């Protein structure tokens, strides 16, 4: 069960690639300016935020980050 969930999350991680790298082909013109930015730069910037949102969701749903399996050793002063 946990394995298939991780595979699903791995697939979700492909979305930023498709959006940022694949999508750029459809927005390659300077105008319209979005938030004052040229369209391709705005596209990439929006996808940076979307990537963080997607990966934050992946982190939250990833069983590897639940207490017993992923063990953080006690805090130490570096």
């Amino acid at each position, binding site marked *: 069960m946990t394995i298939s969930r991780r595979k699903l999350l*791995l697939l979700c*991680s492909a979305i*930023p*690639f498709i959006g*940022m*790298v*694949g999508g*750029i*082909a459809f927005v*390659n*013109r*300077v*105008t319209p*300016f979005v*938030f*004052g*930015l*040229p*369209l*391709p*730069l705005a596209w*990439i*910037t929006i*996808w*940076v935020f979307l*990537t*963080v949102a997607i*990966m*934050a969701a*992946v*982190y939250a749903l*990833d069983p*590897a*980050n639940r207490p017993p399996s*992923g*063990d*953080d*050793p006690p*805090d*130490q002063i*570096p």
Partner: protein
Amino acid sequence: MSVALLIILLAAACALLLGLAARRGHDMDLEQWSVGGRSFGTLFVFLLLAGEIYTTFSFLGASGFIYGKGAGAYYILAYLTLNQVIGYWLLPVVWRTAQRERLVSQPQFFVCQYGSKPLGILVALVGVAAMIPYLVLQFTGLGIIVSIASYGAISRTEAVWMGAVIVTTYVMISGMRGAAWNAVIKDLLIFGIVVFLGIYLPLHYYGGIGAMFRAIDHAKPGFLAFPVRGNSVVWFQSTVLLNAMGGFMYPHVFSSIFTARGDRILRRNTVIMPLYSLMLLFVFFAGFAAIQQVPGLTGAAIDLALIKLCTQTFAPWFVGIVGATGLLTALVPGAVLLTAASTMLANDLCRAGMRPAASNGSVTRLAKTLVPVVALVAVFFTLRGGATIVALLLMGYNLVTQFFPALVFSFARRNPITSQGAFCGILAGTLAVVAITLTNATLSDLLPFLPMALRDLNVGLAALILNLGVAAIVSAATRVSLAPQQA
């Protein structure tokens, strides 16, 4: 003595003292020195890995690239983001292997995964060859920033020597801990400076960021989107994918990964890091602002755009702070590079290749002795100079990307690649990169039958495909020849 010079020298002294103080309370054995005893938490790991995003290349190089080439530079923001997505899945498994086997370097990792010593030696050789130009680039950037920001009071040569002596001294004494403590100051400074410059410069010269883009679009139509040829959409896509794969393959990045004390720290970092790389947006803004304010820079001089605009815009004390930031921006990655390169030379070439019986203690002593040697080699290439540095850096990047297939496949439940396959694949890819770089070949030279639209594909792809092909063939061949013996 000018205010700017005073501030730069003060920052240099602080960096040295902080780097030396980082040793306090720790016995510098091999694991402490090379990977900080695997004890760093979220903040330090974040700063060490973020140090990769904000090297002098992104500070000067990204703004210079924007200034000279326009939209092409957007690729940096895109690959840094996607690189982290790959990192989310890759870094924890790399870290767990390193933790279990107490690894201190990248070649050891390959030895461990494939059980092959020759593979480790090859990875060490390619890794050092890729790191030297990276180090040279840091020193070159340092020379540019410090000499211009001190209004010429410190010459480029003097700046390079100053930086090299400081970083060598604290690396020899504190290793990775020295780099980590300096990273704290450096990232606070660069965060502030970059955001300020990216907002203030467009506002001051154009009345705002939107107004600046409208003005540039008016003066240079099409400059803000990808051109049809050259740095085209296809070039962007292939370069982003290649660099996203290669981003974590530098040996010194592996060292930074090994410093983490848990795998969740790494995952958390890769989730947040893209937000931090958004700061590049502000570097872009500053680079765009320079286009109409310091016109006429061409060739290698485009790297001077940002710092020249600063001296033209601000009072000396502020230019001094920018110069100090530039100094630290070079020193932190420089320290990590020096530590990783010396560890690899001592541990993975000398010990693995010649004296397998050497103790950890003697390897540590040898690694520390090699620090000034590596630094001197880098200073030599820096001062010899020339336009070849960018070419060397691109070569370095393409070189380490050759590790990616063998690394990823080594985590497969049934690895399709044998150790011989990995060895031959990496060797073939490496030789292809060197040949492509030396002959300046493009993909359309190599494959003239390619359709027009695909001619701007990054030529590094060719080397990677060759690598995969050779690895597959050799793996198949060695499996067949091994099969009867195993049966």
